[in-house]
């Protein structure tokens, strides 16, 4: 089922300005920008630490998110921020009548295939984001506004990568 928006989406420029102001607030209040992928890393680190603590702490990547044990891995700035993202989105969705259990997909593809692609896309996204030290929120938006070299290079390549393979996946969306 594809949801039809009951309320039209906000003018993209106004939405962008709103986002930009939130980002600016983050710079002024915290001295850092927004992000998302780091919260996923913290969560994976926490889960791994629950099941196999020695492995989690020894792992060079996850170890940084587990820390030295003095604070809980989930007591991280990004984790709280991402929870806020969920809450804010839910609020907006409820107000707009867009909150409902659904699967977003094009008309030509089955739900099963769509979900499989979603999972695969998520895995790819994880690799991309961790290699780049951020995702579109942390690198493109935050780094873009601060004229960060790596962020602009990253942002450019996101568009390049997406457009390069779009044609091969058009059956999923059109």
């Amino acid at each position: 089922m594809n949801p039809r928006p009951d309320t039209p989406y906000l003018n993209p420029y106004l939405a962008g300005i709103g986002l930009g102001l939130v980002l600016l607030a983050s710079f002024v209040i915290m001295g850092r920008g927004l992000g998302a992928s780091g919260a996923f890393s913290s969560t994976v680190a926490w889960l791994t630490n629950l099941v196999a603590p020695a492995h989690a702490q020894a792992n060079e990547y996850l170890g940084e998110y587990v820390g030295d044990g003095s604070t809980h891995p989930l007591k991280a700035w990004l984790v709280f921020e991402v929870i806020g993202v969920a809450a804010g989105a839910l609020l907006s969705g409820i107000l707009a009548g867009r909150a409902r259990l659904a699967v977003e997909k094009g008309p030509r593809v089955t739900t099963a295939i769509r979900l499989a692609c979603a999972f695969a896309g998520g895995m790819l996204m994880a690799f991309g984001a961790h290699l780049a030290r951020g995702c579109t929120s942390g690198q493109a938006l935050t780094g873009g506004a601060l004229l960060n070299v790596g962020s602009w290079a990253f942002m450019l390549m996101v568009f390049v990568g997406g457009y390069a393979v779009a044609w091969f996946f058009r059956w999923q969306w059109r």
Partner: protein
Amino acid sequence: MMTPLYKYGFFGEEFSLLVAFALGLGFGFFLERAGFGSARKLAAQFYLYDMSVFKVMFSAIVTAMLGVTYLGWIGVLDLDLVYLVPTHLGPQVVGGLVLGVGFVVGGYCPGTSVAALATGRIDAMIYALGIFAGTFAYAEVYPAIKGFVNANPMGQVTLPEVFGLPWGLLVFAVVLIAVVGFWGATKIERWVGSRS
């Protein structure tokens, strides 16, 4: 110079977590308002019939960029204290490509997937599970790819520094690129829309 507030000691770590939640609220709210809780709208960017991703992203960048520029200029914000993610050109270029592919395949990016799953999109929930799996896989192979991941370190460097140009000039350039880009994007949308 009194900001960033946190780095001038106005509040501690515990309160900063509340701040994180509040900022996230705004972030998620505007993401969903823009329609980014929908994979179809997000993916549409790459099929040229809905360029909202580009419009929203660059409006946000321009807004925040002008904001830090002016606040830094009048001395309210100490821009040197705002964290800049260190640049590692190689892995960030490759990461961007991979992320772009993931965007088209999965239909979301990490932030928008959270916005979408909060509004009930099952594919976004599966996507998030994919991120977990991918993160774990990344951690497992990390020792093997560590060399590449830390390649080309350039430290915390900005475009004005690398090009040797004044900050204000780059800001002006970005604004121009954005505005022209918006005009062009709308033209493309209309052209693609009229064809189908």
